Structure formats: structure tokens, C-alpha cells
């Protein structure tokens, strides 16, 4: 029997089983699903299968794969020749000075003021020279 052929109440119960197994089902939904499971052997068997898989995945979570020998040494060797600061070639988002955006704003402001000052000075100088040559 395919899932589509099940009675509507069984289909709805089974759609709630993952949440039940995860312990996320609460309130009225929990009550309805539990009540259905009390008298439906098929859905109870399906709940048990889902619980078994959840247990298997929990066992998997508790046994992470071990890193291969030598990986730690390789990682440390790559990190040692140059420290973090030398490797940190990419500055923070939009920052000129890396980790200190406030300093970046100061640099940019000073740069803008200096450029404006130099430009104005050149303009005044050219104007003065033209005035002298014209007079």
C-alpha cells in the first residue's frame, strides 16, 4: 500500500511523525497523534521505524569521524610561517584599515580635506600668476 492509499487520518498522523520523534510536537497535535497511535498498528510501526532511524542518527552524531593522521600538523605548518596579521590580506567589509572602520573614516576624511586644500592652492596659484602676467 502506498502512502497515498492510506486513510486520511493515517496520512495526517504520518506527516506529524517526524515532529513527534524530534520531540517538537506539542499541544492538541500531540494529543491527536498519540490518540491515533493507540489504536493504529500501522502508524505505530511507522513511528517505531522513524524512532529507530533517529536513534541511529544520534549514534552517528556521537561518533564523529576521526581526522586523518598528519592533518593537524599540516594545518599548523600552514598557519605558522606567517601569522594571522600577515595573512589577513582581505580587510573588513569596506574598511581601509582592516578591523577598525572608525579609523578608515578618519583616513578618508583627512584624504578628502587634503585633496581639496591642494586643489584650492593650485587654483589660487594659477589665478595669481595669470593676474600678474596679465597686469
Amino acid at each position: 500500500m502506498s502512502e497515498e492509499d492510506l486513510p486520511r487520518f493515517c496520512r495526517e498522523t504520518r506527516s506529524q511523525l517526524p515532529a513527534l520523534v524530534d520531540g517538537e510536537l506539542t499541544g492538541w497535535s500531540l494529543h491527536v497523534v498519540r490518540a491515533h497511535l493507540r489504536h493504529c498498528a500501522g502508524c505505530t510501526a511507522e513511528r517505531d521505524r522513524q524512532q529507530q532511524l533517529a536513534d541511529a542518527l544520534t549514534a552517528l552524531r556521537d561518533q564523529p569521524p576521526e581526522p586523518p593522521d598528519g592533518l593537524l600538523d599540516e594545518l599548523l605548518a600552514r598557519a605558522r610561517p606567517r601569522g594571522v596579521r600577515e595573512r589577513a590580506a582581505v580587510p573588513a567589509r569596506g574598511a581601509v584599515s582592516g578591523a577598525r572602520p572608525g579609523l578608515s573614516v578618519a583616513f578618508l576624511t583627512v584624504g578628502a580635506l587634503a585633496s581639496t586644500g591642494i586643489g584650492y592652492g593650485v587654483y589660487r596659484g594659477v589665478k595669481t600668476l595669470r593676474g600678474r602676467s596679465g597686469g
Partner: protein
Amino acid sequence: MRACQRGEPDALDALIRATYADVYALCRRMLADPDEAADATQEVFVRVMRSVIGFRGEAAFGTWLHRITVNVCLTVLRKRSRARETGMAAGRTAFGLPGEASELASSGPLPDEIAATSDLAARSEAALATLAEDARAVVVLRDLEGLSTKEVADLLGVSESVVKVRLHRAHARLRTLVLGDADTAIGEPA
């Protein structure tokens, strides 16, 4: 972390020692390939070293590192997918939604080999390796890493309903491989 940002020489070593096993474990499960997982772990720490100065503590360090690791793994998976599209491999799997290019992970153990493994965790590990990449990513992130459906959807760039469908199908496949259920064993209602 702060010591790393200050450039203290032993701080980065300590950070790597404390976190590399978890990073490797996540890469190993996402990629199902020990060599690629080791390379991905290297890449994760290269990215950490590049951006640790700019880390401002807006997220917890663990969350930040986790996101870098997942992104590195997804990059590897996308490269694999592109390589397959150019003709290096073929074979559809039942996990893909209509219109998705989901391919069969061919490097995992055979179902008979999985069934012959007595230890439940080892059997689950072997079964996980046989899942298609998109299905495996969802199982690893949702079931093993404990992320919410929304967090998984955001990381993978798909909708929550796609995550739920992939998870449902992946669980059905895992039940078949790990517990020996028939694919169609839905069970008779009372």
C-alpha cells in the same frame, strides 16, 4: 579569538587544535570523501586566517566557523556538480525534485556491504555516504548538526519545503539501508 586578532603567536595554533576535528568531521560527512574533506578543512582555516582580523563578534565564533565550513563544502559540491555536468559522470537519483540536477553518489558502499556491518553507527555512516549530495547535506545539517529547517534552507539557498521534502526522502532511503525496511513498507493502517 581576541588573542588571534592581536596577533599572539600561539593563539592561532590553539584555535586550530581546538576546532579542526569538528571542522573535519563536518567536511567528511558533507563530502563523503576523506581526501576532499582534508582539503576542505585546509581551505576552511585559510579563510579563517584571512578574515579573523575582521571578525567583530556579531555572531558566536562557533557559528561563524560553522558557516565558513558549510560554505566551503557547498563550494566543493558545486564544483563536483559542474564537473559532472560536463560529462564526467551520469545517473539520476530519486532525491532530486523536478527540474533539479541531482546525481547519484557513486563512491559510497553497496547496500549489501552496509547491511553486513553490525555496528549501528557504522552502518548509518556508510548509508549516509550513499545518499545523493543534496539529500546528504540536508541530513547532515538538520539531523547531525542540529540546525533548524529554516537555517538549513538559508544555507542551501532553497525553500523550507524543499528541505522538508529532501529530508523525508532521505530518511526513507536511510531507513531502507540502515534498518532494512523495504522502500514501500508503509505499513497497514489499523
